[in-house]
């Protein structure tokens, strides 16, 4: 055994780096490098084919003083503000519904997860059709209970909530799976003891399930919020940021700036502002953690 350890040691040198080479090259070229280059570009005026020229903080200054930037940031928050609570409430409800050892559990779990494996593009196309204001299924169902539905995606007031609702349908199954895993960790005797003491189902949920699931819930809230800020594909397929600029989100705006207006410097600055916003939000959530997450 000793000699074996010795040969291991002599092999220490460069071999590990050979195994790591692909991923390290990839991360340098496609992630770490671009993060640095993009910071540099954000301080320049740059269009493809021309040499970038340094403009200092002008891109940031212009963005922060433009009405559209704040409108777009506000709309992104608005989307997250609808999407995050609704989707987590739905995910948790679904998880609680199938948590117990019910017959057909695997069936329901599979069905609820189907939208997750469906591409956002496919989901967005299907929902654009459902949302069709003239002959769509949604407005037909609403008409059955006497409501005349709006032109969902063509109405500046309804387009964003409609996109958020589609995203809830698309993604709820994902968080449901994570919450299910969390729920399965709660010892059943806690609930049984409480039931013997006469605690109602609601009381048991509030005093046992919720505190014990809160660390998982925290993780879900953080990740879902980051995901919500990144919303891109939905607006790309369903509205192109319209009508007008009413569903323009930060990600889509960065995209537009770079690949429709070809202002790569400003797009990079926008990318960094976006990153900063996400970091600040995540930081705040970690700070608020103690307030509501149960620590044994």
């Amino acid at each position: 055994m000793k000699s074996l350890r010795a040969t291991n040691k002599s092999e220490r040198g460069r071999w590990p780096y050979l195994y790591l080479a692909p991923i390290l090259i990839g991360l340098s070229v496609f992630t770490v490098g671009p993060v640095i280059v993009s910071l540099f570009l954000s301080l320049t005026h740059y269009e493809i084919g021309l040499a970038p020229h340094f403009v200092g903080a002008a891109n940031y200054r212009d963005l922060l003083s433009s009405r559209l930037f704040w409108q777009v940031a506000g709309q992104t928050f608005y989307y997250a503000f609808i999407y995050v609570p609704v989707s987590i409430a739905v995910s948790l409800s679904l998880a609680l519904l199938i948590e117990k050892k019910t017959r057909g559990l695997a069936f329901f779990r599979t069905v609820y997860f189907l939208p997750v494996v469906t591409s956002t593009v496919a989901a967005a196309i299907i929902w654009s059709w459902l949302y069709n204001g003239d002959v769509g299924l949604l407005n037909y169902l609403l008409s059955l209970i006497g409501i005349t539905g709006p032109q969902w995606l063509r109405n500046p007031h309804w387009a964003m909530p409609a996109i958020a609702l589609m995203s809830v349908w698309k993604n709820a199954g994902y968080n449901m799976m994570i919450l299910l895993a969390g729920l399965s960790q709660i010892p059943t005797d806690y609930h049984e003891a409480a039931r013997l003491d006469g605690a109602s189902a609601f009381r048991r949920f509030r005093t046992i399930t919720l505190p014990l699931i809160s660390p998982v819930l925290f993780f879900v809230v953080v990740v879902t919020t980051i995901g919500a800020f990144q919303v891109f594909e939905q607006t790309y397929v369903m509205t192109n940021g319209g009508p007008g600029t009413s569903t323009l989100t930060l990600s889509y705006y960065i995209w537009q700036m770079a690949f429709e207006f070809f202002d790569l410097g400003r797009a990079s600055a926008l990318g960094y502002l976006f990153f900063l916003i996400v970091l600040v939000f995540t930081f705040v959530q970690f700070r608020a953690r103690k307030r509501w997450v149960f620590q044994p």
Partner: protein
Amino acid sequence: MGLPAMKLIRYLLLGLAGAIILAPFLWMIATSLETPEALTVFPPRIIPSPPRFSNYADVFQQLPIGTFFFNSVKISLLGTIGELFAASLAAFAFARMEFRGKKWLFAIVISTMMIPFQVTMVPVYIIMRYLGWLDSHASLIVPHFFGGAFASGAFGVFLLRQFFESIPKELEDASRIDGASRFRFFLTILLPLSKPALAVLGLFVFMGIWNDLLSPVLFLSTEDKMPLTFGLAVLQTVQHNGRFDLLMAGTLIAVTPIILLYIFAQRFVSEAFLRSGVKG
């Protein structure tokens, strides 16, 4: 006494949720079997009668769905192989070797998962342009052999490292005593033993590439290069007034392989969630 009633309510709610979740899929199927004329009428017909199966022949004739499909298969398969290659090699080094800066390197690899694409998108586009890979499948495939253009590989490294660590060290010692090289051990013993982990990772990576819109939209421009996601997104804007029947048939063709794959492998998916969720 209240128990059977509670149970009934639970099943009703489970069924209701299932119906709401399935409804858009069913509506897609119904629409894909309609005549174009029937789709302009309000109230809409719920069940197409008679169902027009010829839409599925038309969709291949009138739209380049066959090309899109082939592109999706090609990009997703090759990309998945690439990512399994890069991630398993790196995970092996992190799980089984000692070297300088290991902890730091691992931390860096994992933390790249937090970098949003919005920050790296522009330079990555410039790199692809510089390499001459714009509007070619190389831009969508080759990066996966290096862990992906948008740091997707880090997740695979993390997942496989955990699995590799769970395989007893004695196995490696034994194979080394028999004179096998380290790489041979990796290739002929460790990888075959890791089939379940590789399958789960492969499944997630394949779905991720198949469903991805960002990279194709970023790098491709001609129609005959597009995968299903991009192709359908373009058709959706072009076809806006009319032929929703064909668009829905195309969408159904796009989602069916991935849904079948998921249904076959759903046991693995649930297990993966359970295992990764333990630590919360």
